[in-house]
């Protein structure tokens, strides 16, 4: 009996020591490595030249943080800032950073960051952050969040809140309260949702998506007039080109539920062109310049972890998509 107790004691000791040792070892290994898995550079060398600001999805110490690369070498070394975002936009020195604060109860907030990457203001968000845009002169921001944690993959079953605000965090308007005109007639349906704001250059005009009665519309609105006018159906997450003549968007068409195709709508000629990207894209695209669209596509690394890449495709429907920035998400173009 004594012998058996001794044997048990020995087994317990080995088990406890072995397990504890392994846990300690793996907790040290889990500490983020001082370097990322991709080449890095410093911020100062990038901010002075035209560059892309994006969410870094490369495995390693920079995962989820703000990163930037110069436009001259977008797949090259990136500079990271130790601030995490799920979605971001950056214009004229103002960076909008939407993120989740994950805990027992997850909350969401948006940070307004200065050109030095310090937090100017933090405003809580009512739900899952979806879209964020800064106007070209950095004086207006727009954020879309999903309330009830639902996604718009189920039309008619979610609720959005889209708020236009100043850089100091004060609200300019909740555009869901604007008057909506469809076919010239006011639409007062309770089920309407608005998302994906893109600003015009006059700080008053903007475009967005409105959904009501199971249909989605491109709407054009003005902050001063507090009115939205539906222009076209089946246009989601519009993005206005730098020259203000075209809207890039995702089009549902006849595709299966939850799938979209990228297209460009010319505001002057009324012509709609499908882009050469054949995969489904669920993103509010960004204009790299007047000829190129960039967007994020989710990917998986070889070890199975979730990642994404930023791709580029010509805006006139020609060419083929190419990876612009690997291991990136939510790009923004900054031309100082």
């Amino acid at each position, binding site marked *: 009996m004594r012998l058996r107790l001794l044997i*048990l004691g020995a087994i317990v000791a080995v088990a406890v020591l072995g397990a504890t040792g392994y846990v300690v070892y793996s907790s040290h290994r889990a500490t983020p490595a001082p370097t990322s898995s991709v080449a890095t550079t410093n911020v100062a060398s990038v901010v002075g030249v035209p560059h892309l600001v994006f969410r870094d999805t490369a495995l390693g110490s920079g995962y989820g943080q703000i990163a930037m690369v110069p436009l001259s070498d977008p797949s090259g070394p990136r500079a990271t800032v130790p601030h995490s975002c799920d979605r971001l936009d950056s214009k004229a020195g103002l960076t909008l950073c939407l993120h989740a604060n994950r805990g*027992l109860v997850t909350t969401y907030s948006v940070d307004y960051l200065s050109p030095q990457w310090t937090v100017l203001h933090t405003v809580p968000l009512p739900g*899952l952050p979806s879209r964020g845009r800064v106007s070209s002169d950095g004086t207006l921001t727009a954020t879309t969040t999903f309330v009830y944690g639902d996604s718009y993959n189920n039309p008619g079953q979610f609720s959005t809140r889209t708020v236009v605000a100043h850089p100091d965090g004060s609200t300019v308007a909740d555009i869901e309260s604007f008057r909506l005109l469809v076919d010239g007639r006011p639409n007062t349906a309770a089920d309407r949702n608005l998302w994906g704001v893109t600003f015009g250059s006059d700080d008053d005009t903007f475009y967005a998506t409105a959904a009501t009665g199971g249909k989605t519309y491109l709407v054009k609105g003005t902050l001063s007039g507090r009115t939205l006018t539906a222009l076209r159906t089946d246009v989601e997450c519009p993005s206005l080109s730098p020259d203000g003549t075209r809207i890039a968007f995702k089009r549902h068409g006849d595709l299966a539920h939850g799938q979209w195709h990228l297209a460009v709508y010319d505001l002057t000629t009324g012509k709609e062109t499908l882009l050469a990207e054949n995969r489904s894209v669920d993103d509010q695209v960004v204009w790299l310049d007047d000829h190129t669209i960039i967007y994020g596509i989710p990917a998986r690394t070889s070890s199975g972890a979730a990642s994404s890449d930023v791709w580029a495709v010509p805006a006139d429907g020609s060419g083929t998509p190419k990876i612009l920035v690997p291991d990136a998400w939510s790009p923004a173009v900054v031309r100082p």
Partner: protein
Amino acid sequence: MYVSVRDRPGSATDTDPARPVGRVAATVFLLGVVSLLTDVSSEMVNAVLPLYLTATMGMGLIAYGFVDGLYQGVSGLVRIAGGYLGDLRAQPKWIATLGYGLSAVTRLAMLPAHGFAAITGVVTADRLGKGLRTAPRDALIADATDPAMLGRAFGVHRTLDTVGAAIGPVLAFALLWAVPGGYSSIWVVSFAFAVVGVAVLVLFVPNRRTAPAANRVSGRELVRAMVGRNMRRPLVAAALLGLLTVGDGFLYLALERRDNFAAQWFPLLYVGTNVAYLILAVPLGRLADRFGRARVLVGGHVVLVLVYLSGALPAIGPLWTVVTLALLGTFYAATDGVLPALISPLVPAAARGTGIAAAQTVQVFARFASSVAFGGLWVAMGPRNGLFLVAGLLAAALPVAAWLVWPADRAARSAS
């Protein structure tokens, strides 16, 4: 937790206050300790598996449904075999050791397992071990115990078992907190607990004291215990209800999708359900004895419909998840052990183990099908609509299930 297929029920004397209160045999207590350690080991892994497979390994929902179904169903393949082998050579201890040892080894096998085939192999081996050891272990408990105290003995064993099942997820949570994303730590610690459990079993638990009992049952009686006339309706009811039971893993994944809390809190969902179960198990068991097991079984499934609805509806606040867990624990408390208790009076005493194994086998196979199907539903229509659909189907199936089990319950009550 999948509690329903773990244990034998207590006998009818379980709740009789006039019975002499004695101590259970040391063997029973030791087996309880073995089960406690093993449950800490297996529930640690079980509590993180849904999120690990879908979020960290990137497994799709249909593939996860298949793995979840395997987890629930594979043990059904060997339960009857395990009991029979243990009986055959009067060596239940070594069959049980084989089962426990096999499961222990699979914990370590999780470390190198990356990929669908490897995970499937690991889950299958683990659950084969589980199926193999349950009946011989129960036989050891029964052999070591005075027949008048059987209910109490199984009750003590179940309590230790459930304590282990409650500790496991808490330990997993603590490890994920200390080592974010540290799933490999969980596998290693789980292996350590399993090894100590096997050591206690091998070193201290005596093998069966007496030769197999003289009151053998004939082969025909055994077959009748499995598929005889008395059994058919309850078995169909078990299959029907099992088919409409969405596994815990999927339910918790749906909650995580809705509320988007951080991964380290996921194991606590299992703890929440366990706590509700622990509080309500004895009261609802007593209720079943007094008001009829069929009523409580059906009532428990009504609660399950509420669980699906509360998982599918938008959360009203952070406490909404707690409500879901409390309801799920209530479901388990109301139905765990009630099906075997319903079956027991229908078969001769010596064939009881076979009858219960048959009912549990039907149940786990039905749940295998249910897991695979729900994975498909999730992909086709999303978790919320999937839960709504299953809730509706279950609500429609309840009158049928009630009609199926009512005669069995009435027969039992008139016989007692």
